[in-house]
């Protein structure tokens, strides 16, 4: 009898526990579902419908286009205003003194952005690796002597990779020439002198420091194929040593193009089609640094994969790490290094990611590497 009375008690306790667990989990699940329903409803109700890709003729796009053109026209009219900043590519003149104060942004008056001339000189000295001689003054022979690229044949190897070790200091060509070296700040007496001490060309971070010649970038192609009046020719002779690199520029239909390449390009000459597809897909689906490294390491031997560094940037949005770029920079560093190493441009085979800094990459990139090639 005692046994028969004890059993229901234990059973009751377990039932209560199970019941409570069910109730709690149900609550959690329900609140999670309700949250997502509310968020979805809010996004649905508040956002305007977007046109399909390439639908730049939609009324919304046309309206925005008109605003942009009107804006450009209005600022073109005020072209002679002193504090305007002109962009060479598209004739927008953006007035620094009309910056809106949006959240997270600094609205700095134009005048306050100008450093005192001595500070400017110091800043110039500090960032002298970014500043170069006037491009107009350089001669082509110095370009050729700097470049480690041989243009004599496909898959050409670096002739001076040892001269471009990572631990090497930036080449002297990245410093100001003697004639342009800023004077000692104590020697700067007047505004004229200060103005004369400005570098002739400030190279935007990461930009190439010399005008790259067509021959330099052609990688042994002597057919002169190019966009400026030269003949187009098919690339009918891809070999397993070649790379196909796609320079992706956002909002140019690049995602469609990227996917088309993944799906349609027959990478049979490199061994197997899966090499390309798996590599990129794994990068897109999973923000997995190790997997990416493995992917790159495996494929670098074959020089097979399409590389698209802007994919990495998309990860930062997907993983909601909006402004933490450290991880991103690691990925990009590895990408650059691999790209340079396997195309035998500048890095030695034993380069490891741990020894590379972003500045090194800039230096090496500036020295020799083209952005896109086949």
């Amino acid at each position, binding site marked *: 009898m005692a046994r028969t009375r004890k059993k229901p008690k234990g059973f009751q306790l377990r039932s209560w526990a199970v019941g409570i667990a069910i109730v709690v989990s149900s609550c959690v699940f329900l609140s999670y579902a309700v949250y997502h329903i509310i968020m979805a409803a809010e996004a649905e109700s508040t956002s305007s419908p977007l046109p399909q890709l390439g639908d730049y003729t939609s009324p919304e796009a046309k309206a*925005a286009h008109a605003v942009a053109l009107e804006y450009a026209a209005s600022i073109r009219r005020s072209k002679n205003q002193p504090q305007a900043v002109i962009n060479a590519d598209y004739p927008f003149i953006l007035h620094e003194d009309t910056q809106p104060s949006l959240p997270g*942004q600094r609205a700095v008056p134009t005048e306050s952005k100008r450093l005192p001339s001595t500070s400017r000189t110091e800043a110039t000295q500090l960032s002298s690796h970014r500043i170069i001689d006037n491009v107009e003054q350089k001669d082509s022979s110095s370009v050729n002597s700097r470049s480690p690229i041989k243009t004599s044949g496909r898959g050409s190897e670096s002739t001076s990779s040892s001269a471009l070790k990572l631990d090497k200091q930036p080449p002297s060509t990245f410093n100001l020439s003697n004639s342009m070296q800023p004077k000692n700040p104590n020697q700067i007496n007047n505004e004229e002198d200060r103005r004369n001490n400005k570098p002739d060309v400030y190279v935007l971070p990461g930009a190439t420091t010399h005008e790259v010649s067509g021959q330099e970038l052609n990688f042994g192609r002597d057919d002169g194929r190019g966009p400026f009046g030269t003949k187009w020719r098919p690339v009918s002779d891809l070999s397993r040593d070649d790379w196909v690199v796609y320079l992706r520029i956002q909002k140019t239909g690049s995602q469609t193009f990227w996917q088309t390449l993944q799906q349609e390009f027959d990478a049979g000459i490199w061994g197997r089609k899966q090499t390309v597809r798996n590599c990129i897909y794994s990068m897109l689906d999973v923000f997995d640094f190790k997997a990416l490294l493995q992917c790159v390491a495996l494929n670098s031997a074959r020089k097979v994969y399409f590389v698209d560094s802007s994919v990495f940037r998309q990860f930062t949005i997907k993983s909601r790490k909006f402004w933490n770029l450290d991880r991103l920079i690691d990925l990009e560093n590895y990408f650059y290094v691999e790209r340079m190493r396997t195309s035998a441009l500048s890095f030695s085979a034993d380069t490891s990611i741990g020894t590379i800094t972003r500045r090194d990459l800039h230096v090496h990139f500036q020295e020799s590497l083209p952005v896109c090639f086949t």
Partner: protein
Amino acid sequence: MTFLREPVSRAVSEFRHITEGLVAQFGPHTFGAAWDYNFTFNPSMPIKEKRRIGTFANWMKCSQCHVGVSNRLTRFLGSSETTGKSLPEELYGDLDALEKANANMLRVAKSRLWSCAFIGIMERYEDSMLVLKHTFPQGLKRMISYATNPHPKTGKGKRGAIS
């Protein structure tokens, strides 16, 4: 190889992408959170307020957004940075420096186009795909169509034939 687009259309598309496009894809908190600059990203700000200040005109004037508003194509082509950066603060307002820097970047970008075996044009996407196919006859011999990227909200994409 690379793909280009008329600059104003590209900029308009970028604006739409970083505002409503991101909202549709990742939620209201991502309004204005571009991949390389901050337009109106602020998790605590209500979406209505973000939409109020996140206008196209403000985007064009916002200093951080310059990398997306103008010269993006040139920056990608003429620089090793995937997005590029504006001038450092000490050179803000320095018309000469900016003009020369931009001119230099543009020159390099043009030079680099020489090395591209294929340059597509967004406004002529179908034609570009045809040229692509003929540019790589070996790798794309079986290519007969292409599919546009599915729309983030509707999930629908278009399929284009290459004739």
